[in-house]
C-alpha cells in the first residue's frame, strides 16, 4: 500500500495530520499541538485548523476512492462551526454523497471526545476531472 495522500502534502504535515484507513473508511487525526491554538483564553483551536482538517479529510476520502486523481481539488467548501475546538486531538471523516463525471459532493464531520458531538461539519464540491483547470 502506498503512503496516504496527506503524508505528501506539506500543509497536512504542518498540521501533523495522520491518516488511518480501514477498508473504505478513512479517518484523519489532528493531534493537539500548541501551534494550533487560536484563542489562548479559552483555550481553543483556531477555527481555520478545523476547516483545514475537514478539507484534508475530504481530499483523503476522494483520493482513496479515486486513486487516478493526482490531487483532489475543492471547488468550494462550506464549514459550520458547532462547538468550540478544545485543546485536544481532533478526528475527521468524510463521505462522498454523490459523484458524477466531473464533480463529487462530499460531507465531513470533525469531532473530539465523541463522534456524535461534532465540533464542525463540512460540505464541499470536488473536481473529479483532472483535465480541466490547472
Amino acid at each position, binding site marked *: 500500500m502506498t503512503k496516504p495522500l496527506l503524508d505528501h502534502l506539506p500543509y497536512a504535515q*504542518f498540521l501533523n495530520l495522520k491518516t488511518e484507513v480501514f477498508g473504505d473508511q478513512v479517518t484523519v487525526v489532528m493531534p493537539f499541538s500548541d501551534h494550533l491554538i487560536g484563542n489562548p483564553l479559552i483555550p481553543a483551536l483556531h477555527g481555520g485548523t478545523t476547516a*483545514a482538517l475537514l478539507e484534508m479529510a475530504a481530499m483523503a476520502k476522494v483520493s482513496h476512492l479515486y486513486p487516478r486523481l493526482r490531487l483532489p*481539488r475543492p471547488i468550494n467548501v462550506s464549514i459550520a462551526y458547532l462547538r468550540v475546538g478544545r485543546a485536544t486531538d481532533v478526528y475527521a471523516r468524510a463521505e462522498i454523497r454523490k459523484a458524477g463525471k466531473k464533480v463529487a459532493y462530499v460531507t465531513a464531520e470533525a469531532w473530539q471526545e465523541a463522534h456524535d458531538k461534532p465540533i464542525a461539519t463540512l460540505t464541499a464540491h470536488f473536481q473529479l476531472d483532472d483535465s480541466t483547470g490547472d
Partner: protein
Amino acid sequence: MTNPELLAILPQLAAGSAHTHALGFEFLGHEDRRVRMRVPYRRELVGDPASGVLAGGLVSTLLDHVGGMSVWLALNQFQSIATLDMRVDYMRAAAPGRDLLAEAECYQLNRTMAFVRAWAFEDDPNDPVAASQAAYIIHKPSLRDQSQGDAE
C-alpha cells in the same frame, strides 16, 4: 473614527495567537470597513508539492481570520466573536512562490451577528484566488471570558 485602542491592538489580533504566529500572518492596514492581511509564502504552507500552490486550508484560515478582523473594525472595539459558518469558493490556484493577501469587509452587523465577505489574492482584489462569505456570532461583553465560542 476608528477607536485608537482598537487600532493599537489590530496587529496583535492578526498575528498574536500561537496559530496565526506559526502561519506568519501580518496585519497590513485598514481603510473604511475593509481590513487587509498577508501570509508570506513558505514551503510548509503548500497544499500541492508538485505545483507549489498554497493549501486550500491555509486560504480558508486566512479568510476566516481577516473576516474576524473586519468584525472588530465594524464594532470599533475588540469583543469576543466566533465564526458561525463560512463558505469559500476557490476560483483558481494561488501563484506559487507569491505571498497571499486577503481583504475582508463586514458589510452588515446587528447586536448578535456580523456578516462578512472576504477574498484572497496576490495583487488585485478583483482577481481573487478565493472568496468567502461568513457569519460571526458576537458575544456579549459580559460573557466574554466564559465564551463557549459556539452556536448553542
